[in-house]
């Protein structure tokens, strides 16, 4: 490591490459932490974990016993084991006994993206509460028509403060904190919405995954979604070369017209129209093939409601947009994890070796900073897959029961996981011997003392 620092100084390694190499080495040595322990204040399974985005210091967790707690993950509250193990107790916990606390399970707890003064929780008691952290009081609350599965706020937003809420109801609702009212709803899903995520490249784009297996991209300034992901639309590779995409479209339309040269021209044109209509982008002019009795005049933005393409064969249980906003990972109850190219809307066909994934609850995925690794909770373990080849790189076995959520902190390269066994486990890079010099209270000794 010292040699690499010298190389960086001399200019042989770029500073970014140096930092990335170092982080990569640390991630590869992730294991159950032997110097950090979070004392869970919950008596129910942990459904959601998030470290705040501003400082990377406070971990917020929501559990099935309607409790929400926050922990400081950088400074332990006390030391144990001769000063080596730091115990992190919760800074505060809000549960059912609180006057305006939730009554049923908390499915999602997220920090306000700008600072840690507020946090938003969504629960199975149909409410979304916005809390003030310092006084632990509810500031605003929104009532939803069904169990709230996920709430999300955009970290890029500069002109809106909307909370996107996915519930049992088919409509995705946007709640505005500034006015305390519901801003608008997005319809198009045909069953409950289990996951919602904001795009990491645009403050207006929302991605939602529903129990009907569809993943839809919404621009909240317009009606209807602009993209529905279809698992049968695929591309071979991370990004299609520019010529390749138009070539496959031409190939499919030429193949459709070649086997039947005797058809009248009208039928051939109908075939070509069908091949265009089956691609995922909807054009404003209605290109729906004539459906007979079902023809009705729809707003062009609502045409997407007719699109029944599915991204998974079951419900979509987890979504994660990569940091650069170019790819989307989705986990479904058909136990598959798929990687999508956001710009073309196609399945990149990377096969992740997942055997079984939890199907009844939404789950939280995590990615490492350069999007090289994906952390996925697979039943009682958490597996880290290489994003581009789908190989299993690391497996984290430590929980006694199913793992529901995981969060990777970029700053410290630490992974926090929470599961049905009510524990929050910390996985950190293994500490090297010389690091032990600077932790905890140590007696003042040098190598020569007796």
């Amino acid at each position, binding site marked *: 490591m010292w040699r690499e620092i010298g190389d960086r100084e001399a200019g042989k390694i770029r500073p970014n490459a140096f930092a990335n190499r170092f982080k990569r080495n640390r991630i590869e040595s992730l294991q159950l932490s032997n110097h950090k322990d979070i004392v869970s204040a919950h008596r129910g399974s942990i459904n959601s974990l998030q470290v705040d985005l501003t400082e990377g210091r406070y971990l917020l967790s929501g559990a099935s016993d309607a409790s929400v707690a926050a922990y400081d993950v950088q400074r332990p509250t006390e030391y144990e084991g001769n000063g080596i193990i730091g115990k992190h107790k919760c800074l505060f916990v809000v549960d059912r006994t609180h006057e305006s606390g939730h009554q049923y399970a908390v499915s999602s707890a997220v920090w306000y993206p700008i600072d840690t003064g507020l946090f938003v929780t969504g629960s199975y008691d149909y409410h979304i509460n916005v809390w003030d952290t310092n006084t632990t009081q509810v500031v605003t609350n929104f009532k939803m028509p069904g169990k709230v599965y996920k709430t999300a706020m955009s970290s890029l937003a500069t002109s809106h403060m909307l909370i996107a809420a996915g519930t049992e109801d088919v409509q995705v609702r946007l709640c505005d904190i500034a006015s305390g009212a519901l801003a608008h709803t997005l319809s198009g899903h045909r069953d409950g919405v289990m996951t919602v995520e904001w795009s990491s490249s645009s403050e207006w784009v929302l991605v939602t995954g529903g129990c009907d297996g569809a993943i839809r991209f919404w621009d909240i300034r317009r009606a209807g979604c602009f993209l529905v992901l279809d698992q049968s639309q695929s591309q071979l590779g991370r990004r299609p070369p520019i010529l390749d995409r138009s070539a496959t479209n031409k190939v499919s339309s030429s193949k459709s017209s070649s*086997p039947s040269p005797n058809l009248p021209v009208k039928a051939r044109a109908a075939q070509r129209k069908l091949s265009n209509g089956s691609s995922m982008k909807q054009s404003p002019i209605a290109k729906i*093939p004539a459906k007979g009795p079902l023809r009705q005049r729809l707003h062009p933005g609502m045409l997407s409601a007719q699109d029944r393409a599915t991204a998974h064969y*079951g419900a979509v249980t987890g979504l994660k947009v990569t940091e650069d906003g170019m790819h989307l990972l989705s986990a479904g109850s058909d136990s598959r994890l798929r990687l999508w190219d956001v710009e073309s809307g196609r399945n990149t*066909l990377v*096969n992740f070796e997942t055997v079984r994934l939890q199907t009844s609850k939404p789950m939280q995925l995590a990615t490492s900073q350069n999007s090289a690794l994906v952390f996925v909770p697979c039943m009682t373990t958490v597996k880290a897959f290489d994003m581009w080849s*789908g190989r299993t790189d690391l497996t984290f076995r430590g929980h006694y029961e199913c793992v529901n959520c995981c969060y990777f902190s970029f700053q410290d390269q630490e992974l926090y996981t929470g599961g049905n066994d009510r524990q929050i486990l910390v996985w950190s890079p293994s500490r090297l011997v010389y690091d032990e010099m600077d932790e905890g209270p140590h007696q003042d000794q040098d190598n020569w003392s007796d």
Partner: protein
Amino acid sequence: MENYGSESSKGKKRRREEESAAESSDFDQILSLEKSLTFSDTMVALRIMRAQFPQIDKVSIQPFILQSQLYSSVKDRTRVDRDLESLKREKVLRIFKLNTGQDDHAIMFSEDYSSQIERVKKRSQEKKLGNLEVFEWFKTHVIDFKLEPSIEHHELWTLLSLGGKVKDEHISLLINAGLLTRQLIDPNMYWFTIPNIGSILKGISQGRKEVLSLLNRRRYKEMMLASLEKKHLRLSSLDMRFHLRDLIGSGHLKIVQTPTGLVVQVSKD
């Protein structure tokens, strides 16, 4: 997993041997053929497994391969998926979704599927049912055009109408013949299916359970591959090799190299 190629002659991971066999045949014919015979590993695996499909007396069915079997015999799964996608686009093979489990897919070569449709058509002719022209329409318009495993009702109607006037009885005939089934979730969508496959699907799911229970009953939940291969399955008409490939590919079993040979274990995750 590369060492497994050198295992028993009846062994399953014969990828290395298959590759060398393909390469030698390639080399011999490299002067006469220029383009065909480009075997990716996936293609070699598909052909070998098609040849190994067990003979079943009671049901007449063409060989098909489960997607999980491919995963167990070719190392890189992403490459298998991409190869399957390109072969599907070239219309060499067709992928069907099965209802035996969460994510089961069956792969059948196009020529096998066409002969299966012919067989179904002959059977319907023998039963003296009307409206037999729908099989021709199905073969020429729908199969060639729609490569995905499912199709919407109005699209099916439009494609069949390219052959002639379509009536509801035509579609019922296709469903009764076993070429289409309705989806449970959405009444407007159909799955493409392989006709006469019902008893085999039952055999697949029961055979899987039988193999897993066989291994789970043992004390350490493992067994030598050589002795496991020789066992006969009571409930399934497919052979043990078929089920083993399928279970290893789907991750329920794993193979461990030991000094005495390969051992099959039930995987714990």
